């Protein structure tokens, strides 16, 4: 169920250049159904900036009623959020959308998790859930450069983790698909989140595999009412379009036209 919750900030720290990790506490966490869902945060009680900010959930702990968000403080809204201190309450709407399902991998199988930049966070909770049920996870995480890399150790604790940077300043040089072409991974299902060009390249490279992609799009309402975040679907689908916020953000490979 979607709820509106004033959640207290219990921890906040900078992970990399402009990348903030923030832990929020409140009963909204009880409603989270799957990794890859997101929340819509109002960063001010005034009308400037006006709209909420959609931010994906990196991990959650239902017992403690805490969730961890990782976001890039880039625009006005996310910078205001990043500046908030521990103890401050923020207006959070969520959980929103349909995330990844760990049910798509069976124990003993290998899952390939491919993240790009600020698309990396939702893969963390997914990897925790997959590894907990005995799925072997391989993580390929792409970033712009060494100063943008985060959560390398956290992912490494769950399974093989490759860091790939566009400029080669950390890990391998190139894109995630370059790394996978050089050193292929045997896997059954892939899960990916990141910029659309990366999703496109991943889907093409593994067109014969089962895969799930998490999309990003400018949003208005976040609940499916405003039609701001629609994507055209590939021909042959039941509907001509999907809404990233409420039908997604995670779709099986081949649904969204990219």
């Amino acid at each position, binding site marked *: 169920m979607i709820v509106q919750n004033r959640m207290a900030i219990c921890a906040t720290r900078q992970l990399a250049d402009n990348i903030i990790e923030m832990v929020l506490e409140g009963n909204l966490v009880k409603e989270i159904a799957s990794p890859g869902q997101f929340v819509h945060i109002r960063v001010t009680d005034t009308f400037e900036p*006006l709209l909420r900010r959609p931010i994906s959930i990196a991990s959650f702990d239902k017992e403690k009623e805490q969730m961890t968000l990782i976001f890039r403080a880039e625009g006005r809204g996310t910078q205001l959020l990043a500046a908030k201190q521990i103890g401050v309450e923020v207006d959070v709407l969520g959980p929103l959308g349909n995330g990844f399902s760990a049910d798509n991998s069976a124990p003993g199988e290998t899952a390939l998790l491919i993240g790009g930049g600020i698309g990396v966070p939702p893969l963390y909770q997914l990897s925790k859930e997959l590894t907990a049920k005995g799925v072997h996870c391989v993580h390929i995480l792409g970033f712009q450069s060494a100063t943008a890399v985060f959560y390398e150790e956290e992912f490494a604790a769950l399974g093989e983790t490759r860091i790939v940077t566009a400029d080669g300043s950390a890990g391998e040089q190139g894109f995630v698909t370059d790394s996978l072409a050089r050193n292929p991974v045997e896997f059954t299902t892939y899960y990916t989140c990141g910029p659309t060009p990366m999703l496109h390249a991943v889907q093409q490279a593994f067109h014969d595999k089962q895969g799930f992609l998490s999309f990003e799009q*400018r949003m*208005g309402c976040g609940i499916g009412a405003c039609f701001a975040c629609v994507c055209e679907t590939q021909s042959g689908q039941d509907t001509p379009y999907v809404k990233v916020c409420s039908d997604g953000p995670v779709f099986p490979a081949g649904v969204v036209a990219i």
Partner: protein
Amino acid sequence: MNRLAVELPGLSLRNPIMPASGCFGFGKEYGNLYDLSQLGAIMIKATTLETRFGNPTPRVAETAAGMLNAIGLQNPGLERVMAEELTRLAQHDVPIIANVAGSETEDYVQVAEAISKAPNVNALELNISCPNVKCGGIAFGTDPKLAAELTAAVKAVSSVPVYVKLSPNVSDITVIAKAVEAAGADGITMINTLVGMRLDRKTGKPVIANGTGGLSGPAVKPVAIRMVYEVSQAVNIPIIGMGGVAEAGDVIDFLSAGASAVAVGTANFVNPFVCPEIIHALPALLDELGLETITELIGRSHAV
């Protein structure tokens, strides 16, 4: 006695608050969050004869205390709106105002005739002011002769009262208002969005794929208040006012300016519970002003 009740052509409103067309879909998503029968009415998303996909993305861009949108009237088309959306809405005890759009007179007439026969549609809102479609829309709303002709054509076939939604993108909005009143409009809804543009700092190009978009949100409220003030003194048909309504105090302002009811648009995106919150806050505001009923507010700004 219900202090918030308002009577308008075709509409017995339990309160004067309704979500604005295009900001509430067909009520499904918000219906998952609260009981829609709390609302005065619902203005459903514009319906066209055929399915419309709408404009390419990005379709929205934030601006100072507002936002631009160019959705492009995306909707499943008349047949499915009638069969699925209106049927689902019939389970809620709430009047529906159906927003009717088209690219030529014949489209509007066909949609209006059919949708006005739906049992839970109490009124039509004739959309002659959408700034984000290439044909129709705003072209009808900026020419008093075309606006009047379309109003008369729709009035001739509609089974329910017809409200005409006016565009603020004109030099004198009272001219259009008087033209549609003379053509038989039962009421006016105003204002639609103001045409605007935001540029990307890096590329210098428009952020919205459509180039221009419609500006809404608190930023436009003073323009809307001024226009409601002008139109309400130029015509004798009621006005449903809208433009930047975000809290209960804004409702006081719109009614004082001359509106008889108020629609809430963009604020639904900021706070999905804003409509019921405004409704619940109104009685206390009436108490503060020493008023018994909300209708006493209507037109307080006008010179006696």
